[in-house]
């Protein structure tokens, strides 16, 4: 597999990347480093699970793990996708793929595992399942996305509302600007068989869809809340307390600049394959400086 040299994928805000090689991997126009004075900043771990019927509901993996840091003072958001197959010490004991932490100890274990390995303080988590993502996108009327390339998969799992969850279906999400309903948006972010970058490519697509949901959410109003809550019943869990609600709502209204959103995906050489059981090994000497730059 050709090395995917890109270490960092960013849209919007331009970022300088610490060079892992002799020739600097400067992918984007440098911008000022994040200020250490980030009053009110907080970090949330977004978790997405294949909670289909192949798994028991309390023992699922988190195939999508995205660290999100929100800096209210600068109105900046940074999204860091963590490779699901990253081979790390798990907070509950042992070493394994990081996506298994949730299955061993729910969100607390996932948060602790990420926090301990990346050296990041995580304030809260939000977990969402497959059906939750489909329902959320459908309830808001679908999303508009510029899909980056045709996503073709002859062996996409046919495991949602299926009597035989080990079956397959064919998927073809065509490329370019388009409107996606929940089912097709899930296909776009979940498929990885025909992606040279596998889970890394999928992480980039997941971030695209998150941004599209954000765009669509601008049109929501309070009357949408009941339908949304009904749609995601049991498919979203969070640690965020009721007392923080007014603060978050007020904060939400101040974020309106898509160019202030950084997107980071840890491609080689920040990670490399060859770990046990098909896992991905981290290159902490490169990852940690990068993480600490944007998640101080």
């Amino acid at each position, binding site marked *: 597999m050709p090395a995917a*040299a*890109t270490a960092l994928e960013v*849209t919007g805000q331009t970022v300088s990347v610490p060079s892992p090689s002799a020739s600097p991997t400067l992918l984007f126009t440098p911008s000022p480093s994040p200020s250490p004075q980030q009053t009110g900043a907080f970090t949330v771990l*977004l978790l997405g699970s294949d909670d289909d019927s192949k798994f028991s509901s309390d023992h699922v993996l988190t195939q999508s793990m995205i660290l*999100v840091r929100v800096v209210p003072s600068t109105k900046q958001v940074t*999204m860091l996708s963590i490779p699901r197959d990253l081979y790390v010490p798990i907070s509950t004991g042992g070493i394994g793929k990081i996506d298994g932490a949730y299955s061993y100890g729910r969100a607390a274990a996932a948060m602790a595992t990420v926090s301990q390995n990346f050296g990041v303080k995580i304030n809260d988590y939000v977990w969402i399942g497959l059906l939750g993502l489909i329902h*959320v996108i459908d309830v*808001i*009327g679908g999303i*508009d*996305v*510029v899909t*980056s*390339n*045709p996503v*073709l*998969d*002859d*062996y996409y799992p046919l495991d949602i509302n299926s009597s035989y969850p080990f079956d397959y*279906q*064919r998927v*073809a999400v065509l*490329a*370019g*600007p*388009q*409107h996606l309903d929940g089912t097709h948006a899930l296909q776009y972010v979940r498929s990885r068989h*025909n992606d*040279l970058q596998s889970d890394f490519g999928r992480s980039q697509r997941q971030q695209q869809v998150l941004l*599209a*949901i*954000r*765009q*669509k*959410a*601008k*049109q*929501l*109003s309070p*009357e949408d809340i009941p*339908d*949304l*809550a*009904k749609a*995601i*019943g*049991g498919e*979203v*869990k*969070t640690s*965020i*307390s009721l007392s*923080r609600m007014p603060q*978050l*709502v007020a904060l*939400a209204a*101040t*974020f309106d600049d*898509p160019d202030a959103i950084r997107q980071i995906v840890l*491609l080689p050489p920040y990670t490399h394959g060859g770990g046990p059981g098909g896992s991905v090994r981290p290159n902490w000497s490169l990852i940690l400086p990068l993480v600490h730059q944007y998640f101080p």
Partner: protein
Amino acid sequence: MISKVLLAIGLAALMVVTGFSSFIYLGAQHSRAAKPPETPTQATPRAQAFTLPGTLFLVQSGAIYSLSAGRFHQLTAEQGWTQPSIFPDGSKLLVVKRSFFYSDVWVLSRLGRPLSQLTHNIGPARNPDTGVKNWSFYPRLTRDGRTIFMSYDEPKFGYEVDMSIWAMPVAGTIRQARVWTNSNPYTGGDMQPVPLPSGGILYTKYGFGSDQKLGQFVWLTTRAGAVGKALTREGDACAQPALSPNGRQVAMICTSGKQLSRLVIASFNGSSLGALKTVVSDQMVAQPTWAPDGSGIAYLAPAEAAGGFQLWFLPSAAYTPPAPSPSPTPTPTPGGPYSGELSSPSPGATQPPAVVKPIRVTSNVGFDATSPIAWAP
């Protein structure tokens, strides 16, 4: 079971951390988010009084609609029909019918009646392997009407499924088809071929660029099996080329890696493009299509952020420089040159030309933005 209040909080939190700006915007009165699109024949307001020349064929929810003289007509049921193109003589439509596991190329009458099925991609009935089925997308006929160029997902190897451009005789079968392009593995491949009068094709090629980022290019291949060449740069990220009626210009979309797509045009000499000129920059543009009479370019784009894709028309005056006004010709004056004071030029002569903006033709519909627009004279 988590309470609805907590669910709402969780969703709000998700939206905050992903940068949602105005979720639960307290001043909003009505939700516009989940409003489903109307069918083109029922949408209100109807297609605007602005009337486009000829007949356009568009797709929504698997049904084909025609737009002629300002009125939409539904030609087919919502049964997976998509990606129409016109026969060179204008008599019929070449269309894709998409099923759950495969898609096929069909010929329909201009009124939407199925006439013949040209591919049979369902695969062997007794083989349960999903990989034995195929997709055919974006069929286009050559000018002589004898060959179909299309994207077809062969060859493929296990998990590796990429579209290549194939050429198939209209009167033949897929076994008589010939692969024209070598797609890049694990990229999705080569899409949306446009046959050129010279015999080559323009299309969109997906591939990994210099920094291993997945990119898209408008590509030219002049003969089967040739590598061809990129006509656009990696950073422009252009796709969906459309050839002008006189063959001298190409319209396309370019994203530059963003979640917006610009409408871009460039001159075309048969082997390379001239400078790219952005003519619409603030929309999510899809499927640019030239008017057969050269009067402008139709395209699809949401009318508002995250809305359904509407039909737009950009008059040619928006991208064609106005003809220079003729220089005043000195009038011979009997008696020799005029030596008196010259009159000032009229104020109108120095005013900049009016800005020509795109015209939104539809409201409240939701066209399929992955389906090109077919436009018959």
